[in-house]
């Protein structure tokens, strides 16, 4: 068992490293110039050249990659001084340092920027997944229980609308109705205290939640319809168990196995940031950061967000695997 876990962890590290490496080289072979993006479209060539040299972009790509990997994890002083030219951009756990460099555009350590953004993205991701799971399971259950009735058709139709509508449409609609017209919620932003954070979270989380719930509704409905035809469900009914208990305890539990996979993958993907939703609602998370970094060719920030995203997805997969064991006793064996 321990051997299997260690193998999975080693594989996860490899996936994150491979993703980072591929991103590094793609970002460097693209026909664009990060120094120009820093200097601005009208900067004079001499200034662009100096910025390129200051950022180390005038060195061969392999040299840049070697330096990046060498600095990614290294040993250094236990106290980091932000003015230290060698370790000023590091995050440290005692003498163990993580250094993703400085943002070309913001001229701040990438680890600092990620540390500001990641909690906000995690908050949004968890809230969105909770909403989409609760909503998806509830509507899927109703649709399956009322199969081929008007309620079923309505639920399936509504889910189709939810799947078809891009998040920015759902987001704009919610923003227009709930924030602009009814003034129930803030139009956008993150707020300055816990109460405002919570209020500001509602719209982006609901936008992502409704969009995701549309998929879950269909999955849960189809899985439940298949599950209630299984022998063990029929047996449970024959033994005299109530409908609700049979549906919730025997059918829904089986139907949840594929849903757990989806929830895990969605959570992992959302850790990388919900680009459109974060941008629409000015939620200061990783999604908005990564899109800005990509447009600016801000290499260190791009790599930082990719590392966090890939680590999020890998971790979510590990958790999904672990949860299978809880839901399905056969996996434990």
């Amino acid at each position, binding site marked *: 068992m321990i051997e299997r876990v260690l193998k999975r962890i080693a594989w996860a590290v490899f996936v994150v490293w491979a993703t980072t490496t591929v991103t590094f080289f793609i970002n460097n072979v*693209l*026909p*664009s*110039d*990060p120094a*120009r*993006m820093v*200097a*601005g*479209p*009208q*900067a*004079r*060539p*001499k*200034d*662009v*050249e*100096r*910025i390129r040299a*200051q950022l180390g972009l005038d060195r061969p790509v392999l040299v840049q990659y070697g330096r990046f990997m060498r600095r990614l994890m290294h040993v250094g002083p236990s106290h980091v001084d932000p*003015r230290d030219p060698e370790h000023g951009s590091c995050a440290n756990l005692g003498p163990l340092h993580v250094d993703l460099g400085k943002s070309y*555009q*913001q*001229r*701040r350590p990438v680890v600092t*920027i990620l540390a500001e953004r990641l909690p906000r993205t995690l908050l949004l991701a968890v809230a969105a997944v909770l909403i989409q799971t609760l909503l998806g399971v509830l509507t899927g259950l109703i649709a399956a229980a009322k199969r081929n009735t008007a309620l079923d058709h309505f639920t399936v139709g509504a889910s*189709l*609308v939810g*799947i*078809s*509508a891009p998040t920015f*449409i759902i987001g*704009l*609609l919610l*923003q*227009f109705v709930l*924030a*602009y017209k009814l*003034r*129930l919620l803030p*139009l*956008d932003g*993150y707020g300055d*205290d*816990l*109460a*405002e954070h919570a*209020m500001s979270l509602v719209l982006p989380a609901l936008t992502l939640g409704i969009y995701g719930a549309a998929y879950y509704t269909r999955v849960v409905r189809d899985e439940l319809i298949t599950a209630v035809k299984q022998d063990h469900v029929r047996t449970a009914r024959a033994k005299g168990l109530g409908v609700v208990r049979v549906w919730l305890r025997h059918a829904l539990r089986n139907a949840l196995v594929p849903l757990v996979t989806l929830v895990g993958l969605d959570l992992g993907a959302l850790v990388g940031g919900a680009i459109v939703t974060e*941008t*629409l*609602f*000015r939620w*200061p998370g990783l999604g*908005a*950061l990564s899109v*800005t970094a990509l*447009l*600016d*060719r801000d290499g260190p920030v791009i790599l930082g967000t990719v590392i966090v995203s890939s680590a999020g997805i890998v971790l979510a997969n590990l958790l999904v695997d672990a949860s299978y064991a809880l839901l399905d006793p056969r996996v434990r064996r």
Partner: protein
Amino acid sequence: MRSIRRKTEAAFGALLAAGAFGCREPPPAPLPHGSSPAPVRGGEMHLASFGDIKSLDPAVAGDTLTGEVIELMYAGLVDFDAQGHVVPDLAERFERSDDGLVYRFFLREGIRFHDGSPVTARDVKRSIERTLHPDTPPTFSAFYDRIVGFDDYQGRRADHLAGVVVEGERVVAIHLREPDASFLAAFAMQNLRPVCPSAGDRYDDTWQPCGAGPFKLEAWDRGRSVRLVRFDGWWQPGKPYFDALTYTYGMNMSTERFKFERGDLDVDRELLLADIFRYQGDPRWKPLGAYDAAPSIGGEEMNVEIAPFDNVEVRRAVACAIDREQIRMVKPPALTPLYRVLPPTLSGDDPSFPGQKYDYAAALEHMRRAGYPYDPATGKGGWPKPIVYVTYKQGLVEYTAQVIQQQLARIGLRLEIRMVSYPTYLAMSKRRGTVAITNSGWSQDFPDASDFFEPIFATAAINDEDSNNGSFYSNPKLDDILVRARKELDPAVRKRLYDDADAIVCDDAPWAMEYLYRYYGVHQPYVRDLAQHNVWSNYVRDAWLDKPPARTSSARASVRLAPRSLLGSILAVLE
């Protein structure tokens, strides 16, 4: 399944088009305003943008958005007035030597930085050297390369910039190695503005921004907002008028409109095309809208080293074939047809100037002279191969590209539009031998004619990589005029020289000039004296708020009763 999805998407599209989000609704009435005859102090101004600022250090700030905040936080020895003339600011006066080689500035008495320390001539020299030091990430250091000792200082052969001389506690002189009539305008830019002693003499990323401008920094929440508060030690008595000013960044344009209409924002400069029409078409709002005066020019940049644009007759044909009125229709409220290089603010808008005009017959004649005659009746002739036209995904240029494609097809030039990302576009279009034709633009760095010629048409601006002269156009006669014009101190003679330069460029046509781009914005009626500035966008230094007292109290009451506040209060209690 797919068709159902398409139908659903189409339904949503129709919903949008039908104005479900208020696009077709007339805008709500402007908010009430007071009736104060003279400026009053107080209040807080709220502005927003979809962009973000990257630094609040004038040494490295270079973009327009950052410039708006820098303009309020840092004062220069000189600045621009709304018409673009250089006027004293921290300096009470300045003078130029007769030979044009020395500029001497006399600082006002008693001026202070935000930290309370006095602004001295030594601070001016320290700030200039800090910005131009070789370790500072440069933005526009090339503007100042005529200061004596610039090359030695940048090349680390000197510890100080010899051309900046402290002549007294309040007198500083700048020596140039040759006369430069554009120097004063470049000096009025923001990069060399004095910074507090805490900034030291070298650039440092971790410095807390601090200057000597009318507002000081209270908080900067990176990626989200900046809040400035009035600096009571500002040298102009009674100014500035606001107590505070908040910029919010990263805001979606539709959210900006929502917030503006409910009064959460006082000015909206980033309007969707549909919203510009809404405001311009409403008599209540029309007087509250205005164009930014700072000009940006746009046109087609033709690489003179790549066929068929290595042939001047083909370039002339393109300049004649472009119907600038049609181009204007792509975004009528923002575009003005442009027939020459210099925008009207600098050229004086002389209607007799020949420039580049739409003339289809002349365009066909130029194609014939080039050796590629084209017959519009049969569609035969012209340049035999498709020409790759590189552009990037951004509303205006991706639409103008299609219009240009259609217009040039009428003279036998068949463009194949290739859409790339903006960074890729920048890299490709400035690399030698890469792009034959592309859309290009230039925004005024400072209001001087040299800024529209030297960076984009002079031979010295050609580089194999990062060439600002993206047409790789070189003309010794033009170069000679530009050098003479830069050194010429007589404004009338200078103007004639730049008119000559403009005529040469229009005739050689490395660019087909197309439009002048201007931003349109609206403000609430209680925002007074919001000047449309010829250099700085969103210029609010002299503005003031004239809000009726009753509105403030009723607004507060309604906020208190709003469910948002009730829920917010509950959560605040829980916290």
